């Protein structure tokens, strides 16, 4: 039984490790582990709720928009408010722009996305 470990797992935000167990040419088992702990949930406790979306955006620099957006949505729920229509539309535009990171810059597409399609020799 062979075991492959890929650490660091690159081209992602953060730090990831992959362990794969292979038996008879087939993957038998696999594990992923995040190798960095920051504890955002712990940090957010007891803070001014209006600060939350600023902080949650810093969870990931590749997709900050989604983290900020969901944080705002959970606050809407907590305060039992609904954003006005224009507010909702603005949020969606911002989210759409943030989500379309592939089109954001050719260079980012090349470095973040395209490289995933290139088969690398087994490490």
């Amino acid at each position: 039984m062979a075991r492959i470990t890929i650490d660091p797992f690159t081209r992602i935000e953060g730090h990831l490790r992959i362990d794969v167990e292979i038996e008879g040419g087939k993957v038998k088992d696999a594990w992923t582990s995040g190798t960095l702990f920051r504890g955002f949930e712990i940090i957010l406790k007891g803070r001014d709720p209006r600060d939350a979306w600023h902080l949650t955006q810093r969870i990931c620099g590749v997709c900050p928009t989604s983290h900020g957006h969901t944080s705002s949505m959970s606050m809407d729920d907590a305060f039992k408010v609904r954003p006005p229509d224009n507010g909702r539309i603005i949020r969606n535009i911002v989210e759409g722009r943030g989500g379309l990171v592939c089109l954001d810059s050719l260079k980012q597409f090349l470095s973040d996305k395209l490289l995933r399609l290139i088969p690398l020799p087994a490490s």
Partner: protein
Amino acid sequence: MGDREEISKQFLKAFEFQGIRRRDFLKFCGATAALLGLSESFIPKIAAAIEKASKRPPVVWLNFASDSGCTEALIKATYPNAADLVLDILSVDYNETIMAAAGKQAEEILQNSKKAGGYILIVEGGIPTKKGHGMIAGKEMLDILKEFSGPAAAILAVGSCATFGGVPSAKPNPSQIVGVTEALKKVGVKKAVVNLDLCPINVEYLVAVVVNYLLLGSLPELDSFGRPKMFYGQTIHENCERRANFDAGRFVETFGSKEEALGYCLYKMGCKGPMTYSACPKVMYNDRISWCVKSGGPCIGCAEHGWPDKFAGFYNRLPDVKLPGIQATADKIGAVAGAAAVVGIASHAIATKSSGRGKGEKEGGKK
């Protein structure tokens, strides 16, 4: 502007290949000269320094407890195109977020860089000092920093996390994250660190520091927090495009109001501009299109030591400022222009005092 002979044809061809004309390149050199506080006569020298750099001084970019936002800022840099190129010229040998290799191959590249030495070490992210809270390839991040800071020619800490810990080091700091300077102290490495504080880093700051290093072979003049004085010498408030509104007592009182639409001052909405030192209003972000205050967001003070806890409650306004002998605040004065300007001066003086800077500077003279 500039001397045509200073830049070789071959080098310019390489630029043209990337769709960058000589004029754009010199424009970039001019912008960099302005950032560095150099006269126009330096433009050809900057061009020559960048050309020399095409021998590819290696860069090792280490990601620790970060969100890779600074890496994203780097690879998304659109202005000037040439800035992008300078960083292309610099050979970024190792950067986990953008490199093609992974696992063992990635580790090999890193070890080879270490053997060669003399690289520019760029650190993104804070360093967890609690055991097991930050590991790469089975090694503690603190140990990795120690290992790679030794052979480095220069160390740049980019972004709020790498400088002083940033968001992940906010109370209660679950992983006991510290900035590079403090981490190096812990492991007993004595080396100067350039702190480029901001969340995320403004790539133009980074490029200017790198160019400064290529040009003069030295790091720029730093303030008491290890930040280049050329970028962190003045408060955001001093250069803010909404400053006239502050001086005239025109404030936004609630979001969604007419005052907000008119672009009034965001001080009462919690803007931390008066206490935050950075050249944001001048350099801006995203192609120099906009920055936080221009887009209607109060400054949250991300360029400051101790952020975010120092400014927790981003929408709470900075404490009322009272002048000796005058019992008034920004609220009471309302729109009385002259008096509001006095408050402005006082808040500035207090900001300067409380942040421990402005030593020997006649701050009271700002009107």
